């Protein structure tokens, strides 16, 4: 066959080869022996996949493309006469079956599949179909849409091999194929496999020795428990889920700004460590925010939905990319939770699985009513601190109340006195008049404007409106909070902050709008302005190296762009609505109508608009009044809102809110108020986290989108689920929480199967269903369908405990087999699908790095926290390699660079090169199965990359210090650090020869020992402790040896 055909091998041809080693006709191998005549054809495994691939595209679930109104994916129409005459399938009678006739005909007009479809069935495949019909055309629903029930354990011959039910299923299949399982793996190879699978780390030499000393007969079982309870278990397994959750520390697209989501990553680690039941794990990620009293963790969990990319490049339409993110969420839910590819239903009904486009948008409707919110979360230490501060404030307030027993009455009187003291303000319907649509502005129902999309960091916003008021004397600018702004705003700055450099108003007659006059303001007030202070140069330095100052509102009218009105009232207090009032020198209305043009100068952001350096107004409203005697209302908007509620209907919380403002107006409490203000300053800052927040004010409607185009909405859809899946719970509100409960329901046909299949994939390198993202009709058939169902039911019966599932797998004899294979076995089952030996494959990219760190002893096992920046190449993060200037502050001080790779900061557009070379996905989309390549770039990485060399130096040092005195002892020690087992004689000889040869070269000066173990500045990178000085030549020699062992295939493989 021409080589090029390798490219286009059709799925059909492939199916045959797969089926040959699969059940039913499982006695047959891929050498091409004929299918045994006596074995009946299995519809689910042999016929449905053929029909799916060859026929469903035109005769399947997608109504819009269905030809001849004939549907072959459902039972009803397969056996019913069709309009043009004939019956698709007549059981027992192939010659009378329309399908078979059309498959066999030579008439090109009638032949199926049609030539232009590109689909073709081989004569063997046609024969299979004939036999299936002849045998009675037994039909069944696609397996994945039938909820799993626990199958009976199969009978096996070699019963004593069976450790637990897993083995019965595996052995049954092996015996069917005339194979027997491999021997149990060597004790130490198995120990290493277990460590890597459960923690992603290597056992230390001491742990190895202890393990070997344990003669209790339960050493392995004890180790399993120990490792399942290790905090590093969560780190290892989190990475698998984070791939599916498309976790990344940056936004993606052009700006690719750093984002704050690491609390979500840590939540995943914590949840796995405490074995949060998988169904609960899913529910919290989809709707933790909607629990009755959600914990902070449950809110953080919704970061799952927020891991979508975000495009804030100049000129984007934010709604377009919100929709892209929604599609991405649906895709992630499909692949990672449902195990179904539903992406195609964006544009049209699924061609192969019975999911319609309408059903897709009905699921979409469940998750479409959220705000993409950035909240502030606190560490446990910070939460303690907060509790302390709150306690003290409450205590002081209680004392105040004791001090004035009639405080309620006084407060009420005060409320009456201020309730109606505000002038009437007329909201101006201003519109962007800048002439540029870079930052997008959306008018809200209260007349305010919300800034979205691209956030320039230094610019002037212009807004204009023409009015016919006859008298205008003052302007009010309100900065408003909004859940779409960071920490609620009111600004677009990192912590919701804002800086207004200048506020200018130009007026002109409506008749001569171009003749503009600048309005002079004579009195300017605000309800708050922070003390004059320099902004942080880290974030807000201008290109000229200067940093702006923020302070009182007068800074916004001082004609100085370096000073701005700032409202940073410190932690928590900064994120509230504020207002300023600008009183003009004189009435600025023109009798014939007035055009007002506001210039909102915002020149306090930093120079780098590809970073989070903006301080833009987030949501704001501009109003006008004819009165001159006005000042900014000191009463907070939130308090005024409570005034509208009759006192008897207010909650205690609302009363406290009113009190906490009112007390500040009481002169006799000056000291107490200052005390409280000081306490607020001590409040921890916390960390930002992207979360989902349900919209309650204005629920968002969802529409069926024509071809998935958000500009072409058709009919409105209500929330709902595909009819092929489990039904929705009855009498529950149609919201995201119900959706979450529905998806994690025991009756779901795919969710538990998808979960156990991926766990299997992680242990064995390949799922029971190889296409772990697609259990649907185009997915690959399960190699061990009964085992898959048994495990799925077992997971659910065990309270969805992942740890119990993992324990079961590692305790099976199947898992504990040696990974040695044979040429015969390779020929027969190259992918080891039948599991006639144990798994062996190169570990994931993160673990490649972790192995080197762990073997060398350099590893820093600190858990959690913001992403870290191990050595990289600085040019990658700077133009012209990167679009924007990205931060990569290599943490040379301390040992942060030796943290596990899970914590390496992940930019989507510039992935960390070491991880990228080892197939680590960058989070562009949900990934439930990684590629596992084997390339020269990987060899270059482990041989030459800086940190890998440091690991060699670290291992050298450790070997010299702990490995004994003799060369052979030391070699064995270093070998065991990497490979757990001891070297064979032959291996020892190769390494000894290398050592001797290089020792000579070092002694002769051919190899510069100092150069090898020092950095560019000539300092030893891995510094030996002062006592017992180690010679440079010795360090260099053992570095050479360690580097070789660290580069072995076995070192980066799990086997």
């Amino acid at each position, binding site marked *: 066959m021409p080589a090029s055909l390798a*490219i286009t091998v059709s799925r059909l041809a492939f199916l045959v080869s797969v089926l040959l080693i699969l059940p039913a006709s499982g006695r047959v191998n891929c050498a091409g022996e004929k299918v045994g005549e006596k074995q009946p054809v299995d519809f689910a495994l042999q016929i449905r996949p053929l029909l799916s691939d060859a026929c469903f595209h035109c005769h399947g679930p997608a109504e819009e493309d269905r030809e001849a109104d004939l549907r072959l994916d459902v039972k009803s129409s397969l056996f019913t006469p069709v309009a043009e005459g004939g019956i698709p399938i007549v059981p027992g009678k192939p010659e009378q079956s329309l399908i078979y006739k059309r498959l066999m005909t030579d008439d090109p007009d009638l032949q199926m599949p049609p030539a232009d479809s590109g689909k073709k069935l081989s004569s063997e495949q046609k024969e299979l179909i004939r036999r299936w019909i002849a045998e009675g055309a037994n039909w069944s629903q696609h397996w994945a849409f039938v909820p799993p029930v626990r199958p009976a354990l199969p009978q096996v011959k070699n019963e004593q091999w069976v450790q637990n039910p897993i083995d019965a299923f595996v052995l049954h299949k092996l015996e069917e194929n005339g194979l027997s399982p491999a021997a149990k793996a060597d004790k130490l190879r198995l120990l290493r496999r277990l460590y890597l699978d459960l923690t992603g780390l290597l056992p230390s030499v001491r742990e190895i020795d202890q393990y070997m000393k344990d003669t209790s007969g339960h050493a392995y079982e004890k180790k399993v428990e120990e490792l399942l309870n290790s905090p590093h278990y969560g780190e290892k397994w989190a990475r698998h889920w984070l791939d599916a959750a498309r976790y990344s520390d940056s936004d993606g697209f052009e700006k690719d700004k750093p984002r704050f989501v690491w609390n979500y990553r840590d939540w995943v680690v914590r949840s796995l460590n405490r074995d949060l039941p998988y169904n609960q794990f899913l529910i919290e990620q989809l709707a933790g925010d909607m629990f009755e009293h959600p914990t902070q963790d449950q809110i953080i969990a919704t970061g799952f939905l927020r891991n979508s*990319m975000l495009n804030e490049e100049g000129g984007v339409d934010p709604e377009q990319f919100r929709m892209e993110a929604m599609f991405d969420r649906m895709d992630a839910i499909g692949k990672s939770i449902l195990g179904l590819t539903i992406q195609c239903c964006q544009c049209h009904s699924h061609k192969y699985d019975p999911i319609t486009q309408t059903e897709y948008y009905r699921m979409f409707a469940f998750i479409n009513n959220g705000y993409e919110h950035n909240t502030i979360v606190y560490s446990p230490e910070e939460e303690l601190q907060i509790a302390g501060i709150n306690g003290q404030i409450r205590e002081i307030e209680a004392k105040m109340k004791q001090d004035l027993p009639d405080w309620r009455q006084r407060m009420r009187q005060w409320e009456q006195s201020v309730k109606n003291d505000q002038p009437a303000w007329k909201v101006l319907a201003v519109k962007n008049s800048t002439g540029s649509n870079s930052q997008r502005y959306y008018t809200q129902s209260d007349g305010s404007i919300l800034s979205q999309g691209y956030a320039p960091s230094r610019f002037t916003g212009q807004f204009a409106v023409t009015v016919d008021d006859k008298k205008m004397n003052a302007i009010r600018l309100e900065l408003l909070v909004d859940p779409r702004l960071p920490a609620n705003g009111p600004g677009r700055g990192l912590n919701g902050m804002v800086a207004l450099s200048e506020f200018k108003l130009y007026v002109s007659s409506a008749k001569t709008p171009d003749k503009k006059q600048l309005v002079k303001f004579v009195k300017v007030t605000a309800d708050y302005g922070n003390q004059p202070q320099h902004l942080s140069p880290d974030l807000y330095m201008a290109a000229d190296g200067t940093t702006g100052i923020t302070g009182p509102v007068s800074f916004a009218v001082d004609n100085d762009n370096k000073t701005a009105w700032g409202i940073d009232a410190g932690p928590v207090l900064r994120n509230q609505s504020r207002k300023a009032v600008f009183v003009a020198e004189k009435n600025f209305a023109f009798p014939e109508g007035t055009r007002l043009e506001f210039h909102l100068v915002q020149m306090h952001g930093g120079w780098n608009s590809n970073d989070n350096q903006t301080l833009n107004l987030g949501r704001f409203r501009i109003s006008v009044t004819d009165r001159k005697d006005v000042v900014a209302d000191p009463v907070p908007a939130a308090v005024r809102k409570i005034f509208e509620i009759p006192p008897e209907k207010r909650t205690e919380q609302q009363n406290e809110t009113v009190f906490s403002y009112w007390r500040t107006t009481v002169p006799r409490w000056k000291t107490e108020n200052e005390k409280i203000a000081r306490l607020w300053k001590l409040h921890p800052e916390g960390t930002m986290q992207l979360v989902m927040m349900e919209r309650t004010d204005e629920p968002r409607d969802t529409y069926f989108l024509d071809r998935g185009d958000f500009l072409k909405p058709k009919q409105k859809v209500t929330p709902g689920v595909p009819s092929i899946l489990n039904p929705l719970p009855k009498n529950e509100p149609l919201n995201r929480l119900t959706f979450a409960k529905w998806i994690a329901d025991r009756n779901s046909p795919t969710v538990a199967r998808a979960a156990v299949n991926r766990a299997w994939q992680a242990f064995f390198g390949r799922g029971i269903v190889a296409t772990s993202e697609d259990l649907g009709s185009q997915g690959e058939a399960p190699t061990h369908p009964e085992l898959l169902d048994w495990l799925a039911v077992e997971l659910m019966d065990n309270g969805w405990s992942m740890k119990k599932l993992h324990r079961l797998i590692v305790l099976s004899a199947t898992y504990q087999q040696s990974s040695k294979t044979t040429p015969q076995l390779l020929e027969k089952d190259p992918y080891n699908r039948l599991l006639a030996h144990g798994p062996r494959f190169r570990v994931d990219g993160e673990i490649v790095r972790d192995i080197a760190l762990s073997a060398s002893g350099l590893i820093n096992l600190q858990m959690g926290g913001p992403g870290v920046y191990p050595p990289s190449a600085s040019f990658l993060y700077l133009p012209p390699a990167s679009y924007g200037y990205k931060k990569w502050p290599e943490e040379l001080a301390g040992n942060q660079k030796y943290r596990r790779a899970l914590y390496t900061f992940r930019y989507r557009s510039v992935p960390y090169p070491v991880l990228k070379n080892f197939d680590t996905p960058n989070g562009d989309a949900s990934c439930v199965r990684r590629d596992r390549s084997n390339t020269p770039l990987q060899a270059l990485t482990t041989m030459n990359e800086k940190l890998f060399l440091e690991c060699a130096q670290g291992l050298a040092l450790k070997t010299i210090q702990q490995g004994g005195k003799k060369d052979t002892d030391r070699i064995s020690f270093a070998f065991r650090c990497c490979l757990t087992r001891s070297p064979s004689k032959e291996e020892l000889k190769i390494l000894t020869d290398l050592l001797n040869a290089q020792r000579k070269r070092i002694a002769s000066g051919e190899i510069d020992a100092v150069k090898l173990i020092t950095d560019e500045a000539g300092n030893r990178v891995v510094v030996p402790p002062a006592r017992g000085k180690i010679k440079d030549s010795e360090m260099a020699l053992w570095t050479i040896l360690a580097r070789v062992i660290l580069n072995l295939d076995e070192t980066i493989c799990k086997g």
Partner: protein
Amino acid sequence: MNCQTYLHRHENPLHRARRWFLQDCAVGLGGIAMADLLGKQAQAKAAAQNPLAPRKPHFAPKAKRVIYLFMAGGPSHLEMFDNKPKLTEYNGKLPPAELMKGYRSAFIMPGATLLGPKFKFAKHGQCGTELSEVLPNMAKVVDEIAIIKSMKTTAFNHAPAQIEMNTGRPQFGRPSMGAWTLYGLGSESQNLPGYVVFSTGTKGPSGGSSNWGSGFLPTTYQGVQFRGSGEPVMYLSNPKGIDTRLQRDSLDAINALNRIQLDQVQDPEIATRINSFEMAFRMQAETPDVVDLNQETKQTLELYGAEPGKPSFANSCLLARRLVEKGTRFVQIFHEAWDQHGGLTAGIRKNCKDTEQACAALIMDLKERGMLDDTLVIWGGEFGRTPMVQGGNDGRDHHPNAFSVWMAGGGIKGGITYGVTDELGFNAVEDIVHTYDLHATILHLLGLDCHNLSVQFQGLDQKLIGVAPARVVTELLA
């Protein structure tokens, strides 16, 4: 996204290893038990299984390799290739309302007026194709190039539009054209990366590394970033203090130890690993040589405007030629500098000064070496620019409805223009070439049928052209 082992399912891992081991692995194989393992019969079959082994295309190709000069940012067709005298006439006027119906723009607001082209055009070459005055060197090779004036795309923001131009769709996650090419054809060189990427200009492309990603194809096919100076490929050089001999000795020890494991556990991936280390070693030897521009004559350096050791677009063009000479299949040079929202006149002038000499030099040089016939050179960005002004009177916004791309060599008919835009350069109106048509044409030149170059992913036959009604623009073919 690197997310797919599934697609290797057509590939027997054993065969993959066999071929590499037998044909590429330079280490002595004496005495290893591989002879049994690697049945002779399987060898021929296995030859097709090395993911980077050269493969025959679907049909006889015109082009064997591609150099894609990607002008990121959206170069203005109106200032370079698409002469619109009427636009001068209508300068300052509002565009016709019917053109603006349903038009979505990035930055400009309704009410933006038309802006006349900034440069003079003149006819050049025997073909008499019009080029603007900022392309004096391209004028000398105009008889070699085919200009498509009727390009059209769907996205009007940089990152999505670049991703569409390179991967077929504006959404992230799909394989790039270079990855598809390697998937289809493999690489002629086993010592150099098959797909090399340079980043020049003022910054990196908006779409980031996904522009040269492998999507759901094996990661082996993703582009490898080369630098214009210093270490050309990351981790190519030995660490400090490790000389070539030590590297070789270390490698020999590693390979010997790996072979013992191969004997014991018989996992073919170990054979592949041995081979990868050998290839890495050869790459270390060969790459510095390939990127050494000092080996070029003064005349050649001057032709391109290249200076050894000084990273530039010109240097990258010359390196591209050196790489394809050595068998690299696909070279892509990004020059991100073409986003002229303002400073249009000076910006275009500068960009042309920085690039067009080298573009022309590349064509001349390839021709002189007899390589132009089977090397396809592509020049173009992700979209064009609005006939309407942005800002004062010297800027244009993003514009997906019409833009220009040129191609040369590799089976392209030189000296022609194809497609027409309306009198304002607003819409492509005749012989429209959508991004997917361009993709189909490029694949066709490489001997690949765009409808057949596919891979199974998520239950579908995925293609570069997706489900679009792509056509090969036969009018462009020589």
